């Protein structure tokens, strides 16, 4: 077997395309922790989060060509898949109802932002700096959308801000984070800046 531990995303995808189970295992070793953590954070449900990890990696096994190394990292690809699935589940009727009840309770109590939706500031230093450098309203909009699994319209309601404003904050916040990470020397892939 080749040195899979040092294999690039692209090499790993090729090996998975050749039915090498050890290559899938290596992709799992590298990314499954983050994939699980994201799904768990969005859904707040361990069993469903585990289900999503399974789905995402089985899909990688069966359709590795869906991952295009030219367009981004395998981690971003897997996380986007997991996030999409988590959000789909969240927006299915039953869970949506439960969710809305929870949110109603929360807004009545005006609970401070100490919940799961808040970004994890135990993250690595450069990322932490970039996150902390974000204007608070941009950061909050991203948190609620990404970790809370809300649509920007829902975020607008939660933050009592106009929809258009929230939409812009999410986009400008993501751009600001990217610039901050680049300034800090963290190489960002995924297409060149325009």
């Amino acid at each position, binding site marked *: 077997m080749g040195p899979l531990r040092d294999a690039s995303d692209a090499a790993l995808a090729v090996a998975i395309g050749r039915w090498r189970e050890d290559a899938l295992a290596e992709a799992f070793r590298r990314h499954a922790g*983050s994939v699980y953590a994201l799904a768990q954070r969005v859904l707040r449900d361990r069993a469903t989060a585990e289900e999503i990890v399974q789905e995402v990696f089985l899909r990688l096994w*069966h359709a590795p060509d869906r991952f295009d190394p030219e367009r981004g*990292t395998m981690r971003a690809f897997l*996380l986007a898949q997991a996030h999409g699935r988590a959000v789909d589940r969240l927006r299915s009727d039953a869970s949506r109802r439960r969710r809305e009840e929870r949110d109603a309770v929360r807004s009545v109590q005006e609970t401070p932002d100490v919940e799961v939706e808040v970004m994890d500031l135990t993250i690595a230093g450069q990322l932490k700096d970039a996150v902390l450098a974000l204007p608070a309203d941009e950061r909050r909009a991203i948190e609620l959308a990404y970790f809370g699994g809300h*649509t920007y319209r829902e975020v607008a309601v939660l933050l009592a801000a106009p929809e258009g404003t929230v939409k812009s904050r999410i986009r400008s916040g993501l751009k600001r984070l990217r610039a901050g990470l680049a300034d800090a020397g963290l190489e*960002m892939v995924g297409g060149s800046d325009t």
Partner: protein
Amino acid sequence: MSDVDPHDEVQELLGAYALDAVDGDERERVEDHLRECARCRAEVAQHREVAAQLASTGADAPEGLWRRIAAELELEPGAASGDLAAILPLAPRPASRGPLVGIAAAAAAVVVAVGVLGWQGHHDADQIRRLRGSVAASGVGPAASAALADPAARVTVLSSTDGRVRLTAVVEPDGSGYLLHAGALPALPAGETYQLWAVSGAARISLGVLGGRPETVAFHAGGSGVGALAITAEHGGGAVQPTGTPLVTGTLPAV
């Protein structure tokens, strides 16, 4: 709305879209646009990389999750059915699993077979179990029968890369081995013979010439260094080194 450039309007949504924070119809609108606009596709990709940074954690996945996924790989529909024909439509990706050419490819073929076996492992386990249970009836000699019954023996299924041809090999701890159901190999034209090889690291060691229509075969596989078995078709009296791609390969479980 008629005054708004549709490109600008969609652009404003790209951040929310990348975080799955748009409604269904907005999503469709964005995706329609992305199909035509490389610049916006690049922006979405960038947003997703940033999001991935936010979501990255050093934590491991829950205990046991990989084992469950690996088990799913083995439980593909068809693979567990016991019907070899049912496996064939499940052999996608012909480009990456097509015929391998040349001696240098032999090692790669073994690697491919490992993947295939992982995928069909459940089926193999069934086949081995069935064989172990019906050895007397299947006309295998008493020595092979005893080897199959020995829990210390290593058993593997040699399979072609397309899963079409499968036979079982059993190797006793002392190296005596038996190839069962070798009749699964298609009969060769006159002047050609099957040859069995032990794969030990980079080395290919001949274990014997099997003839053009082998049945049950006894061989001696040497020590525990043999990691895999392979069968090639060779001309005449066989070859010193395999001259063709292995037709079937099987990895022996580690001792």
